């Protein structure tokens, strides 16, 4: 626990000394390292302490248990690497962003270690507000970040209702005790959590906001913030009883989110909006895994109990994979964007040469992880999720089997569409040859390159080293051995044996099989020469003849015309294809409706006349007194 306290203090110092970004982010890195130590200590069982004080009969404060330790480890690892990246990268940005960074991390630390609802909400709000302040950095006008704040406050509202219901049920606000949470608490609290996880349709704010924010802030907003939502959801579900219809709703929402995120990722062409939709997809899959785990745990029997643990492990692996790979993705894009001054995928062509090998490799590794390329961690997590859906035949009732089957269909579609989107991204940015090397090759700071390399290794290690990773996180007992695979290296998805996977052995086999092509490639240098791309015998004109990223997506946009509402729009005399995210449109209407109501209200009430203002004051006074009187009776 002491490490958490040290971490919080370091975050405060970071906010204080934020005039120089180097110092501010250095403090953030140290604070994250301290929190990471706390998490690891918690996982190793070294300290499970609490730091609480009593307030009106309730215990308020911080503490670490197994669930907290898991998420502290993952989150703080990501915070640390992003902070190291920011030490040099963020030197051009405003002081407010550094302050926001530190305090947002502090808020997240509070959320992850809270033992009571008040601390939880306090941390939640701190996190939301300071991430909101960070999002102001480089946004073109004041409107876009308000979407994030609106949804953040919506989630807080749901949490408040949920916790109030908890208090009403149990007359206590502690988050540790299991059972007895009540249906109202379960529904509203988990609703608040999934709003934070950017589940469809609460993802409406993402498209406009993500376009304009720097890389490290995007990494925090997508990877770290949604991770707290996952933590909160698991905590809430652990606390309350099993509500069958709600578990099915969560499962369905997760699967639809995964599908919708991947679907929209196919049609986006911005360097930031594609990974934003990938966040929606990944969180949808995490939610589906958690839902499946809840359903399985309510059924009886040994195999369902194993399945429930397996599904929970799937959620954890997906969460780790998303946190690490998404941060890497955004950090690499951030570095590449600064080097190339690019906003869209087409503008970022030739990243390998134009921005450097490290961000290019970062995009390749994280993109492949999202595209479920073995043996990376994204592949392992998605395999585990699909294996869980395959075993739906063990669920006791028809409704559960039915919903699980459809969830499996949507998740599989999501995997295919996300692979398409990642191929589009990687292919057009990294592998596209457009530029020659920049004339002045600036030396990029090690603080920028180091975290990306570390994250790349983590993406690879989390997949290949799964037999070490899962027991470390408390999910031992899922491994065994079979035929040529030594015991402890084979992940088993069901008891009795259903499906097995050994990412470690897969990596070994891939390396061995790759030996021959690599030898041929390395040895045959004599007979090889480099030629230009062939297009009818003439050089491909530098601009104007290259296949563009929007054209690559056009075939899916044409096939799924009704879902995308694909239409041609002529603006500035040019013709382009536009698509819509139909699930985000209702919030557009609400947005405009609120704007109009607010404008009307301000016109009517605050019209500059003294008499109206006095009447307004008197009316508020009267209403407050009446409400107070009602509440005390």
């Amino acid at each position, binding site marked *: 626990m002491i490490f958490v306290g040290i971490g919080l203090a370091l975050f405060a110092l970071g906010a204080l000394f934020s005039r120089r970004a180097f110092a501010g982010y250095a403090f953030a890195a140290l604070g994250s390292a301290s929190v990471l130590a706390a998490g690891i200590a918690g996982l190793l069982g070294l300290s499970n302490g609490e730091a609480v004080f009593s307030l009106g009969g309730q215990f308020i404060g911080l503490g670490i248990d197994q669930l907290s330790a898991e998420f502290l480890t993952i989150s703080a690892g990501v915070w640390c690497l992003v902070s190291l990246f920011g030490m040099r990268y963020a030197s051009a940005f405003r002081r407010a962003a550094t302050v926001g960074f530190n305090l947002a991390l502090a808020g997240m630390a509070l959320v992850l270690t809270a033992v009571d609802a008040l601390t939880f909400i306090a941390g939640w709000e701190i996190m939301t507000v300071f991430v909101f302040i960070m999002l102001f950095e480089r946004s073109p006008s004041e409107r876009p970040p308000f979407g994030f704040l609106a949804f953040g406050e919506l989630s807080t509202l749901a949490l408040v209702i949920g916790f109030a219901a908890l208090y009403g049920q149990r007359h206590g606000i502690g988050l540790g005790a299991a059972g007895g949470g009540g249906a109202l608490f379960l529904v509203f609290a988990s609703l608040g959590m999934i709003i934070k996880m950017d589940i469809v349709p609460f993802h409406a704010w993402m498209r406009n906001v993500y376009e304009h924010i720097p890389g490290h802030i995007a990494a925090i907003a997508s990877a770290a913030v949604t991770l707290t939502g996952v933590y909160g959801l698991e905590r809430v579900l652990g606390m309350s009883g099993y509500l069958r219809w709600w578990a099915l709703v969560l499962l369905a929402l997760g699967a639809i989110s995964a599908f919708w995120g991947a679907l929209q990722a196919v049609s986006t062409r911005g360097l930031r909006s594609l990974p934003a939709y990938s966040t929606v997809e990944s969180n949808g899959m995490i939610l589906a895994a958690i839902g499946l785990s809840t359903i399985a745990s309510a059924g009886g029997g040994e195999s369902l109990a194993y399945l429930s643990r397996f599904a929970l492990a799937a959620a954890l692996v997906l969460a780790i994979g998303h946190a690490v790979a998404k941060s890497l993705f955004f950090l690499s894009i951030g570095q590449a964007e600064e080097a190339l001054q690019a906003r869209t995928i087409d503008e970022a062509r030739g990243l390998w040469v134009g921005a450097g090998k490290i961000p290019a490799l970062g995009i390749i590794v994280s993109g492949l992880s999202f595209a479920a390329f073995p043996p990376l961690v994204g592949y392992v997590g998605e395999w585990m999720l699909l294996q869980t859906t395959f075993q739906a035949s063990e669920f006791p009732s028809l409704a559960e089997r039915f919903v699980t089957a459809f969830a499996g269909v949507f998740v599989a579609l999501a995997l295919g569409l996300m692979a398409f989107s990642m191929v589009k991204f990687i292919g057009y940015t990294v592998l596209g040859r457009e530029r020659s090397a920049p004339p002045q090759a600036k030396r990029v700071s090690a603080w920028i390159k180091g975290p990306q390399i570390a994250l790349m290794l983590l993406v690879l290690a989390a997949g290949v080293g799964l037999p070490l990773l899962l027991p470390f996180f408390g999910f031992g007992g899922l491994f065994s051995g079979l035929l040529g695979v030594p015991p402890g290296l084979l992940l088993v998805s069901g008891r009795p044996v259903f499906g097995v996977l050994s990412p470690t052995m897969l990596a070994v086999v891939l390396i061995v099989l790759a030996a021959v092509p690599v030898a041929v490639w390395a040895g045959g240098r004599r007979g090889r020469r480099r030629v230009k791309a*062939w297009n009818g015998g003439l050089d491909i004109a530098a601009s104007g003849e290259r296949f563009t990223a929007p054209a690559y997506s056009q075939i899916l946009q044409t096939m799924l015309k009704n879902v995308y509402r694909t239409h041609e729009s002529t603006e500035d005399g040019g013709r382009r294809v536009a698509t819509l995210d139909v699930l985000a449109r209702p919030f557009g209407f609400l947005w405009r409706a609120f704007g109009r109501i607010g404008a009307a209200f301000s016109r009517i009430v605050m019209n500059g006349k003294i008499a109206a203002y006095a009447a307004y004051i008197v009316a508020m006074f009267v209403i407050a007194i009446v409400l107070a009187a009602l509440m005390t009776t």
Partner: protein
Amino acid sequence: MRWWPLFGISRRLTEKRDYESAAEVRPLPGLFRRSLFIYAVDAGNSNALNIEVAALRAPQYNIHRLGIFFTDTPRHADLLLVLGQPTSGTIGALMETLSQIPQPFGIIHIREPLAAGNRFVDFDPPQLLARIEGRPEAPELLGILLKVRKGGAR
């Protein structure tokens, strides 16, 4: 409705004859003897040579049984068949094509003797196996290609 396989076989279209050519063709070392992949390029002929090459795909010749294949890309080619003397408009693309064909490859250049015009340029690559003056008809063209496939002959 007729049964197409029987109909086709009963037409007995594929002819059984040897295809001769008097042209002198240098050998192409390193070639696989059972198949020859050809990339045909129209460099500036009057379209007559294109017609003869198109006629080679007819069932009467049935060139696949002789191991002769036409490819759509230079990267799969053993032999570059240049039809016509290159013009100033095609010489650039033709030289780029030469650089895109994997080694070892050969070139057969067919030149129309009566080609009129004032925009032709010289073309003298080192990989030339034979330069044919005239408009070889399809059987003679096939004879030339078979000579290349069998390793050149005088």
